């Protein structure tokens, strides 16, 4: 098991390095000088003095290899530099906002599994029946509504028209836990509309597939009760694809909460990214991209290890 984890970790770290290098290469391979590019807002030719100053500030006047090494060294220390806009340390801002995004993703993921998995089991048990067809049709619809449409309509209906909930915003948990969770619910359920449908679909097909396996028939031949067969021989065996898909989607949510955070004014990492992109504050963008990619890779690493825990065969291969 230890060797298995070590091997996966090595792969994960390599991936993070590749991504960091890639971001570096992309920024330096873009035709034109990054400093010039950054300063040329609205088609106005930038001031040459300002370009030179920015080049120095960003270290663009040094040899490329030197830039690359110092870039790697500083991100290893968790130093992403200062914001071009207001001079704040980027790492600090990320540390403040990242937990909010993670909280949102975790809540959405939990909600989706709680809804999608049992419904998937239910539909698979009644495959072809009315329940199955209704649930599958619902899933097809839920998957087709873009998340910002769901969010906007939720604000329109629940907040504007019915006035049941606030339209969005953020209050720290330490300040007012109830208010914090109320504000969390709306963006989390917005994401869960689509995500639970994803979980439902994969759980349903995975359970159907496991139900047809020989070991389920063998368990039935032993006279096990249907409920025990489902719990011991079906759901657990069907979980691997569900976990993979959930992890993949949670991973893309790391950047994908942008829309939901924007709709509900949730001051997470993604909203920060949009501001950075709008302002073309490139050290900020690089910092956020790196942190999110590292988390993404970390998530995949955790999934791989979880696989090993769930399936004894994986540990050995």
């Amino acid at each position, binding site marked *: 098991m230890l060797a298995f984890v070590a091997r996966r970790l090595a792969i994960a770290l390599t991936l993070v390095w*590749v*991504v960091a290098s890639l971001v570096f290469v*992309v*920024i330096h391979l*873009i035709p034109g000088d990054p400093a010039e590019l950054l300063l040329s807002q609205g088609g106005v030719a930038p001031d040459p003095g300002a370009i030179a100053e920015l080049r120095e500030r960003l270290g663009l006047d040094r040899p490329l290899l030197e830039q690359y090494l110092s870039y790697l060294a500083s991100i290893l220390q968790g130093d992403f530099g200062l914001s071009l806009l207001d001079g704040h340390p980027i790492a600090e801002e990320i540390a403040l906002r990242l937990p909010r995004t993670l909280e949102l993703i975790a809540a959405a993921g939990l909600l989706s599994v709680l809804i999608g998995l049992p419904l998937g089991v239910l539909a*698979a048990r009644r495959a*072809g029946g009315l329940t199955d067809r209704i649930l599958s049709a619902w899933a*097809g*619809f839920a998957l*087709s509504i*873009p998340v*910002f*449409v769901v969010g*906007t*309509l939720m*604000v329109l209906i629940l907040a*504007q*028209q019915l006035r049941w909930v606030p339209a969005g915003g953020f209050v720290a948990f330490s300040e007012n836990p109830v208010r914090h969770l109320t504000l969390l619910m709306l963006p989390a359920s917005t994401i869960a509309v689509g995500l639970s449908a994803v979980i439902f679909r994969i759980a349903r097909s995975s359970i*159907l*597939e496991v*139900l*047809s*396996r*020989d*070991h389920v*028939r*063998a*368990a*039935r*031949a*032993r*006279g096990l*009760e*249907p409920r*025990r067969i489902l719990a*011991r*021989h079906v759901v657990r*065996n069907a979980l691997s694809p569900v976990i993979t898909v959930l992890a993949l989607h949670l991973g*893309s949510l*790391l*950047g*994908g909460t*942008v*829309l939901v955070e*924007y*709709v509900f004014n949730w001051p997470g990492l993604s909203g920060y*990214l*949009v501001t950075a*992109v709008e302002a*073309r504050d*490139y050290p900020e*963008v690089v910092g956020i*991209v790196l942190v999110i*990619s590292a988390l*993404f*890779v970390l998530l995949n690493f955790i999934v791989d290890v979880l696989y090993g825990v769930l*399936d*004894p*065969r994986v540990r*050995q291969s």
Partner: protein
Amino acid sequence: MSGARRWRIARVPAALVAGLLLCALLTPILPLPDPVKQEIANRLATPSAEHWLGTDEYGRDNLSRILWGARVSLSVALAASAIAALIGTTLGLLGGYFRGLVELLTVRASEVVLCLPPLLLALLVVTLLGPGATTLTLALSILFAPAFARLAYGETLSARELDYVAAQHALGAGSPRILIRTILPNIASPLIVQFSLTVASAMVLESGLSFLGLGVVPPSPSWGLMIRGARASMEMAPLQLVWPCLALTGTVLLLNQLCDRLRDVLDPRGQYGAMAGRSRRPATQSNPARSTDSPKASDTHEPLLAVQGLTLRAGGDAPDALELVREVSFDVQAGETLAVVGESGSGKTLTVLSVMGLLPDAVKPVGGSIRLRDRDGATYDLLSCSEESIRSLRGREIAMIFQDPASSLNPLLRIGEQVAESLTAHGLREGVRPRVLSLLKAVGLPDPEQQIDAFPHQLSGGQRQRVMIAAAIANDPSLLLADEPTTALDVTVQAQILELLNRLRASHRGMSMIFVTHNLAVVNEIADRVCVMYAGEVVEVGPVSAVFKDPRHPYTAALIRSTPEGEMERLNTISGTVPQPDAMPSGCRFAARCDQAKSSCASGGSPELLEVRPGRLSRCPVINQEFA
């Protein structure tokens, strides 16, 4: 399903998508107001004859903006998908065909993109190049190309193994020619499915970025931008929000539907049939079918199991239902081993599965009865009793071992837990582990104290089958069904398992067995009587030694001749194949392959199964003429 019928299910969404594309194409020539012409005096107007869907916050016509928006959204999504498909497929084809360094530079390199969350990558590209439809198309192409590369790569790998591709190579066809002419058409189906999926995803991402103000640049109409604009004024005009949301969701739903249908048509491997899973019995019959009217049933002459006229059909009562097993009758006495023999497709396995009540969903018994006497002397009709009462018999009175022990054990549970299930399912609560240990010892599993906590993959094939047997005999069942239990094992291990089963039969006094096999040599070693099945029917029944010495059915005789035995030099195979259930011949089902068939054999119904000598049943009127 025929090709035309398969395509029919994709007809409706395909037509709707085509209509949508046509609308977008025709928009410039339709008599619509200018989508960017502002009319501030008439802002946020409600629907009217002039503006069917009203006007937006700048007084622009909503209907016109939606249709023009469709053009923008569709062209960005289609262009991005096309570029991604072109680049990705090329990379995947090259990587999959040449492997090695080329693979590293093409497929593996493109997969780095997958290390970044998609929306994030799009935002990164927008940061570097600034917003706009062109940037958006580029960003989306980069995003979706790796998926195509991966798909083309995987399909190419399997396609290049195909015989005719190898043959072309041997014939000296050049690589580009093989790639384009042979492999590409082969992988076209999954690529088409992926393409339609990509168009839908690209559309969602495009509108999302436009919604954030980082995609299509105003004043160009785009659904994302329209939602963004309507959001600002939603307190005054909530209806503004509805139109673009409907248009976007409807289009994506349509594309997804088309994609699902295309997948069903083009890539049937991905489907899970409703055939899978459990058999459904009428749950209404809660009364146990225990017949108390025959307390004398425990007489020694009464068989333990009596199968009478069992007929199984796939598709139930439908007119196109297939009869898989017809009028099968046999019985098993207490302590006796009955071998059920026949080629693949003879219905042996379905017959024993119906005794267990474990038939696949699609197969239903439509006639006959299966009567089992339990150890207290009560009899059950296994075909009509409730699922709950047959469940309590399974594993207690009747147990079963299967052909492939590797797949019949749950890979995620320790073997001890799986054997223990047999005990706990029938009420044992205490002393389970010692009992499991003694069972594992009884089936000859080496080092049971260690192995009890092993996972199935840590055991050899023969050891796994021993575990399956341990689980089967845990409750001292009176009947053990063994469905080709040695077929998946090595020859040396086969002998050991047979020996184990013989030993268990001797030690568990009174345990009867039904042993399904296609191997007559095995029958000789283990069975008292044999029941020969052909094409869903029983053709001969009798004591093993008598049947082997003097087979009373040409099929049995042919089977015996085809069994490799001792010094025999030549093996006789039976020419022809078992007829399929949808093409059953009239008359005797074996007639076409029979060397003694007469012209009369191939007409009329199937001959009856008759007692031709005491204890001997046969379905052949020709060679049993003197007894008929």
